[in-house]
């Protein structure tokens, strides 16, 4: 082994960088990375070749292991080699399948030399069920006579009552491997695929379903002739009553990667199942990948994954496939058998029409269908957009609950129910307009919301009460997404309508007004928030019967506004009143008190009383810990307290607190929720500070994936997380991976303030460090130069970050001169 460790690390990173790229791009990057180092380049290229071969051979595919059936000493050792089976002599084993072992054989009487494949039922598996299936297979094959199907030559039972059959020995390569080794283009692949369809269609006409179509069951000879093997789990269609009843729900014998959903679920299998498997084959032939990569061998999990996954359009893998081939492939891959091609012939026909430039019958799914799928996906909570869509789909009740004003809702249940139902219905209608055709598959909740928001004025124009509620609901959703402007816009719209209909002194108007104030507070526009909150408070104070908790909440928000604008002393009485009120209304062990304590904690924090703040946060947490069910606002004091603890250097406690929050978030809102991701992000920062870069990486990835569902890419926190991820990758030896991330972050980072970045320096500095690690010293120097100037301007020349940046710049300069 002559690999110098360093060289190997470089080889790995170049390999990883290019392995999934199309050939042209590969070549460019290899050129760039290897330069004149031919040996290095050959090394990478031979690995890439081996990767392709490993892909095709599937030797390492999951499930990675089968249990050798002779793992334990077999009393009746298999000694068939050399023995005779019918007129044939077994020469050697050439393979094993689910049902039996396949041997290479030749005629025993030497009348003429002819190589055959002999399939013998595996010992230990010859239960009645298997024997029945095996006899069945023998019968089916005998009936099939087609140039593209391996011929059955003979069959019978051995002396020990083991069934066998003898079939044409095919020397060839699995379909996908053949196409790759021959370097076939799309057109040749399609033509070959049509031949495969021909054979399957022939079998279907003879009432035989293959049920296990996959590349290794379709060998292609040197002459380019495909041969279908192994009708081992085929079933005869209704032709004979005996088999039809028995095989409908047979045990699941198939290869999960190519199985149709109905096979995975053990449902009725028809010719359409073969259409599906052929669809996967076509997909793989066109793109080099299977549509859904299954990463576990456990059947239940596979079924789950399948049910929820829509295949990615082939054109997303290879652009040139856009249009017909996209539609054709996806039509074969539809989950519901009835919506696929009605026959293999129709499937092949479309491919032929495509080759001849004629219009094809496959169409994209209808908009209505996909919109419906979209909603149902969101409803069952699979899609990314989980929380917010649930909120919209579930109607405003959920929203109201989140604001702890469900109590009031109950008081006026009857009236509200009618409104809620109508609003609910309306919002669902809006969501159906948000179909993937309009947005693409990566639709973000905020886009759905935009689409909904764009329509409500028009559609609810003649029902102002509902329109106002709809605006407020949408405003809340935007607020949760931290989309400041639209949240404010819709809250104001609700307010305007309420003002017009009910006047300024109505509790409904006050609710909208308080919400506008809250939105403004969340988005730190305190001076605009204040008058609204004061006005709302005046109304709510006059009409305390409606819901005193509403009033207490407004007190807290106004208190927050005051403390954030340097008037913490003025906030104190409001916050204390809110706390007292919360205690009186709900008792100590209530979410209202927990929230009020949290607010007072913030107050004490801004009064420079960190010890008091910490005490309040802890008290709030202790109440939360007793509450059943635990409330989501539990996560608020965790965030603030962990920050205070970190500032005090009590990182271990901060970490344990964040982990507590993480566990709760995991159970309550799930690992796909952005709030969960944000907690992980904080934990990752601790990893980063403590220089456990490798541990920070997966957390940040999760953080980005989840928070990315709701935040635009340009959101400062997103950019920050991405940059920290890039640095963590760089520092754990994955600079090549980090580079694109850091470039992206730099591009998107215009809105990020220097203070937000102080932990990591600057975006330029991060990319510079990465490029330096990759040996791109010239670019690194430029970036590090910018970085140290910026840091000096923001924090002064004696700030540790500035000093660090200057030091790094010097290092790079020195390296360049060497």
């Amino acid at each position, binding site marked *: 082994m002559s690999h110098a460790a360093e060289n190997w690390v470089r080889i790995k990173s170049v390999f990883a960088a290019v392995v999934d790229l199309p050939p042209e791009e590969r070549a460019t990057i290899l050129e760039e990375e290897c330069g004149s180092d031919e040996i290095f380049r050959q090394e990478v290229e031979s*690995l890439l070749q081996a990767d392709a071969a490993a892909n095709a*051979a599937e030797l390492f595919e999951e*499930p*990675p292991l089968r*249990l050798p059936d002779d793992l334990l000493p077999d009393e009746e050792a298999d000694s068939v080699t050399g023995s005779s089976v019918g007129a044939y002599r077994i020469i*050697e084993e050439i393979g094993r399948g*689910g049902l039996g072992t396949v041997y290479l054989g030749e005629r025993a009487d030497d009348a003429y030399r002819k190589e055959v494949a002999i399939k013998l039922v595996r010992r230990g598996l010859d239960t009645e069920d298997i024997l029945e299936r095996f006899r069945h297979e023998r019968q089916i094959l005998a009936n099939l006579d087609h140039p593209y199907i391996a011929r059955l030559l003979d069959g019978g039972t051995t002396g020990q009552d083991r069934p066998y059959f003898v079939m044409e020995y095919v020397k060839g390569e699995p379909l996908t491997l053949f196409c790759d080794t021959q370097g076939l283009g799309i057109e040749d692949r399609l033509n070959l695929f049509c031949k495969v369809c021909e054979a399957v269609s022939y079998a279907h006409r003879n009432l035989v379903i293959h049920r296990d179509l996959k590349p290794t069951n379709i060998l292609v000879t040197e002459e380019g002739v495909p041969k279908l*093997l192994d009708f081992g789990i085929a079933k005869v269609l209704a032709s004979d009553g005996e088999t039809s009843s028995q095989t409908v729900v047979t045990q699941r014998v198939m290869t999960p990667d190519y199985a149709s959903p109905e096979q995975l679920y053990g449902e009725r299998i028809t010719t359409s199942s073969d259409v599906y498997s052929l669809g996967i084959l076509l997909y793989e032939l066109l793109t080099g990948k299977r549509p859904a990569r299954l990463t576990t061998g456990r059947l239940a999990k596979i079924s789950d994954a399948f049910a929820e996954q829509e295949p990615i359009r082939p054109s997303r893998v290879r652009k040139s496939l856009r249009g017909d081939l996209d539609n054709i492939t996806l039509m074969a891959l539809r989950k519901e058998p009835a919506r696929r091609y009605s026959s293999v012939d129709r499937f092949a026909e479309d491919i032929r029409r495509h080759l001849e430039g004629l219009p094809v019958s496959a169409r994209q799914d209808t908009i209505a269908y996909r919109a419906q799928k979209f909603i149902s996906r969101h409803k069952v909570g699979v899609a990314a957009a989980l929380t917010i869509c649930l909120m919209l789909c579930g109607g405003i009740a959920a929203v109201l609950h989140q604001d702890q004003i469900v109590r009031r809702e109950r008081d006026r249940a009857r009236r509200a129910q009618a409104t809620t139902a109508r609003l609910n219905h309306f919002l669902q209608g809006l969501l159906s307009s948000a179909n993937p055709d309009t947005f693409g598959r990566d639709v973000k909740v905020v886009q759905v919301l935009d689409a909904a928001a764009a329509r409500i004025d028009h559609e609810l124009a003649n029902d102002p009460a509902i329109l106002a509620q709809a605006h407020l609901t949408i405003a809340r959703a935007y607020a949760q997404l931290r989309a400041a402007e639209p949240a404010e816009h819709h809250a104001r719209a609700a307010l305007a309508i309420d003002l017009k209909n009910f006047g300024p002194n109505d509790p409904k108007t006050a609710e909208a007004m308080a919400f506008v104030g809250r939105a403004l507070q969340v988005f730190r526009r305190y001076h605009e928030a204040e008058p609204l909150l004061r006005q709302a408070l005046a109304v709510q104070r006059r009409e305390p019967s409606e819901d005193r908790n509403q009033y207490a909440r407004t007190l807290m928000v106004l208190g927050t506004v005051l403390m954030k604008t340097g008037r913490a002393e003025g906030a104190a009485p409001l916050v204390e009143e809110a706390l007292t009120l919360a205690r009186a209304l709900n008792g100590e062990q209530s979410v209202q008190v927990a929230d009020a304590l949290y607010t007072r904690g913030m107050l004490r924090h801004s009064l420079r009383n960190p010890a008091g703040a910490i005490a309040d946060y802890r008290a709030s947490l202790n109440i939360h810990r007793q509450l059943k069910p635990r409330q989501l606002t539990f996560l608020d004091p965790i965030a603030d307290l962990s920050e205070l603890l970190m500032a005090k250097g009590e990182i271990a406690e901060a970490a344990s607190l964040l982990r507590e929050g993480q566990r709760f978030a995991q159970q309550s809102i799930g690992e796909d929720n952005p709030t969960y991701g944000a907690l992980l992000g904080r934990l990752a920062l601790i990893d980063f500070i403590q220089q456990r870069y490798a541990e920070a990486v997966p957390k940040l990835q999760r953080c980005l994936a989840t928070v990315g569902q709701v935040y635009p890419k340009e959101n400062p926190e997103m950019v920050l997380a991405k940059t920290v991820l890039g640095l963590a990758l760089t520092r754990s030896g994955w600079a090549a991976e980090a580079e694109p991330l850091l470039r992206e972050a730099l591009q998107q980072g215009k809105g990020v303030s220097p203070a937000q970045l102080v932990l990591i320096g600057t975006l330029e500095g991060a990319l510079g460090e990465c490029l330096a690690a990759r040996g791109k010293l010239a670019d690194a120097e430029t970036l590090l130069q910018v970085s140290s100037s910026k840091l000096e301007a923001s924090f002064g020349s004696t700030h540790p970050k500035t000093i660090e940046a200057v030091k790094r710049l010097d290092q790079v300069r020195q390296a360049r001169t060497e």
Partner: protein
Amino acid sequence: MTLAPPRDQATRLLVDLSRGDGVAAERLMPLVYDELRRLARGYLRRERSDHTLQATGLVHEAYLRLVDQSTTNWQNRAHFLGIAAQVMRRILVDHARRRGAEKRGGEWEKLEMDESLLPNDERNLDLIALDDALQDLMKFDPRQSQVVELRFFGGLTNEEVGEVLDISPRTVKREWRVARAWLHREIFAGEA
């Protein structure tokens, strides 16, 4: 001295292991070894037809049977999976060697495996060659060698491998991809 049942022993050893007791791992191995073989024997007796799914679950099943989850944590689990994968590799490779030896002794010629001849998708990877190659890989990239051991022999998912090695699933995936290519080249070098 009376011996505690294997389950109690294994659980205690795992806890010891996470406290840094290096000897615990060695004492755990024979327990895992016995359990894995016992499970394997059970599977074979049951004549299950979903053959392909057996080995993948074995390591997990051994964990469920051998370790008391109420007194252990995920780190213990990660340790266990790591050890079990190692044992699984030993069992399978030893078996392959033994079988090879038997065949040579019994005038059997070593089977020539031409993958293009295979009429089904049976994995005819030469485990002995793989084991040898892995040992080579171990010398210059121990982590990558472990990734292969855990994923291939242990049947662990990327996430689980990540847990055992304390790296991200994405890194596992990447290491696996390179390792696979490297091993493929190593094993089939000269055969092309």
